[in-house]
């Protein structure tokens, strides 16, 4: 890049590697009343599916749109496929990126095929319209107006529009939010297929099961910052426990003694419920029941599950991902 400005000190410290598809450093975006993104550093490797997981308002969309070159950061640098926005390669970058924005509403009066064809026309080369529509399983709806599609079908159409240029890099901002499980699974399959072909993906979500299923690595975001980064397994392992016990009791319960129970790593109270992260469930459970009885509370319900990314988020923030 001969037209690129002098390299940023942040990047000098970590020289660009050929396999890095996307990176940013010190990314900041402030709006009048809120700092939406408060200094984010990320590196996403080519062929990787990377997830930004966080509750509503965490700053995921703002981050992604800065990476996509749609929003100008207040500070920090972005490098996409080895090139920075605004240094003369924007047009070439756009040719190689498929983007799905969080809230685009495609023209209602156009048909599915017309919409995909319109998007295809913006690129120097692309995939056949029929093939892309087939990939998202909208063949039967080819001639249907966009306004007549279900939300899941609309979302798949948006995906088709981002895939029609045969991108190297795919950005998906909450691709399955508000969809029913079946519609969600269809989208996952398309994303997985793109991933298997070697495509790089950055997706945002507030569904931990989505991040866990699709993503090679996940950054958990909250209040404009990355609060944890790693593979889903690493993140769950960082809890130091593999089971979570969630229970409700009638009457008060002191938290302190719970921590001393054998096999319990952490205890947390959320609303009326208690969360225990536990290593040896076989020891912890009887001990817990005993302790509840000893404190004179009455157990109302109790569930246990394998620790998930959700539990990682709870343990880091004390809040539940979905309605945080």
């Amino acid at each position, binding site marked *: 890049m001969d037209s690129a400005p002098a390299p940023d000190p942040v990047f000098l410290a970590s020289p660009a590697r050929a396999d890095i598809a996307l990176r940013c450093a010190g990314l900041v975006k402030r709006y009048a009343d809120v700092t939406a993104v408060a200094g984010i550093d990320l590196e996403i490797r080519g062929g990787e599916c990377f997830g930004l997981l966080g509750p509503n308002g965490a700053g995921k969309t703002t981050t992604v749109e800065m990476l996509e070159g749609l929003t100008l950061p207040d500070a920090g640098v972005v490098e996409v496929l080895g090139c920075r926005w605004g240094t003369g390669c924007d047009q070439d970058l756009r040719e190689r990126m498929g983007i799905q924005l969080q*809230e685009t509403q495609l023209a209602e009066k156009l048909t599915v095929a017309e919409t995909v064809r319109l998007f*295809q026309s913006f690129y120097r080369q692309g995939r056949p319209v029929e093939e892309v529509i087939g990939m998202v399983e909208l063949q039967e709806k080819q001639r249907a107006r966009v306004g007549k599609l279900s939300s899941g079908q609309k979302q798949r159409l948006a995906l088709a529009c981002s895939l029609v240029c045969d991108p190297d890099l795919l950005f998906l901002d909450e691709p399955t939010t508000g969809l029913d499980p079946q519609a969600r699974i269809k989208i996952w399959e398309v994303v997985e297929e793109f991933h298997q072909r070697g495509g790089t993906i950055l997706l945002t979500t507030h569904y931990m099961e989505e991040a866990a299923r699709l993503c090679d690595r996940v950054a958990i975001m909250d209040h404009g910052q990355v609060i944890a980064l790693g593979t889903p397994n690493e993140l769950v392992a960082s809890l130091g426990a593999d089971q979570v016990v969630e229970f409700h009791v009638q009457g008060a319960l002191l938290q302190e003694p719970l921590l001393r129970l054998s096999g319990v790593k952490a205890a947390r109270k959320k609303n009326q419920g208690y969360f225990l992260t536990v290593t040896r469930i076989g020891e912890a459970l009887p001990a817990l029941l005993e302790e509840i009885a000893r404190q004179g509370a009455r157990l109302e319900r109790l569930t246990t599950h394998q620790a998930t990314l959700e539990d990682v988020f709870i343990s880091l923030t004390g809040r539940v991902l979905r309605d945080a």
Partner: protein
Amino acid sequence: MPETAGAPARHPEPKPGPVRPPNPVLELTLARIREFVREPEALFWVFVFPVLLAFALGIAFRNQAPEKLRVAVETTTPDVGRVVTLLSRSSDLQVLELSPEQAAQALRTGKVDLVVLQEPGSPYAFRYDPTRPQSRLARLRADDALERGLGRKDLVPIQEEPVSEPGARYIDFLIPGLIGLNLMGSGMWGIGFAVVQARTKKLLKRFAATPMRRSHYLLSFMLSRLVFLVPEVAALVVFGWIVFQVEVRGSLIALTVVSLLGSFTFAGLGLLLAARTKTIEAVSGWMNFVMLPMWLLSGTFFSYSRFPEFLQPAIRALPLTALNDALRAVMNEGLALSQSWLEILVLCFWAGVSFVLALRLFRWQ
């Protein structure tokens, strides 16, 4: 060679080679056209409504035997019968006998234009509102009829030659005005609305995320206007010609050029109003704010020469006035384009200024 787009691709497994996408300007323009023709309401307002309006106004104001002026004679006037007979000789007057109270009320409510009565000290008096042209006319006619009936002789006989020339009727005046009005409405709404809607739906942002050239997007609006221009103008011209025998006296080429220029001017203004506006409500407000003065002042329904002298330069600087005048010069008077150079200059000015500003101010998100 890569396979063409037409190749069947039922099974995505054997990945076909990359295809050469279609032309973006063409696709964008087609999208604009499709969105428009699939909106029945828009079709109605652009193609049907102006014709209905022309029809209604053409019928309402068609040249008929001029309406009679209505004169009341107060029953208390001496010799009422004779006065009524004398006045009735004038073919322009319709005469009523009313009591003083009824006459006063009829005058107040505009049911009669003039009241004839007796005032102490003179045989007859006329009571009327001199600010109403109808009343002044009625006064002249009544005066004439009375004086003649009482024996006044004309000094010179004057012959009358009534004319009703096609080209000078109200409908001849109206049709070019409606064409101008329609070009303004569809240009501004068609573009302003579509752009703001695309912005509120984040479609502009989505487009900005592709390599689409911004100029192609804006160009597609111009081209779609061009496509719709023909039926828009033709609908009114053909209707006026068939139903009211309104002629296009000048050349169709001149008519096309003027329409095109007008259309682009209002497309530019629409684009300017939509350049940054974020909501449909806001852009609607701006549109009305800009169009309303032109609806009233630009001489669509009646000649703007009725407005005070000091307003005339401002009125003539309005783009719709210029467009209407240029259309009338071509359609009614059959003048060459060169005769309308001032109007053309005004339109070019507005078109140029609004496009340059719109492109500078335009926001994609």
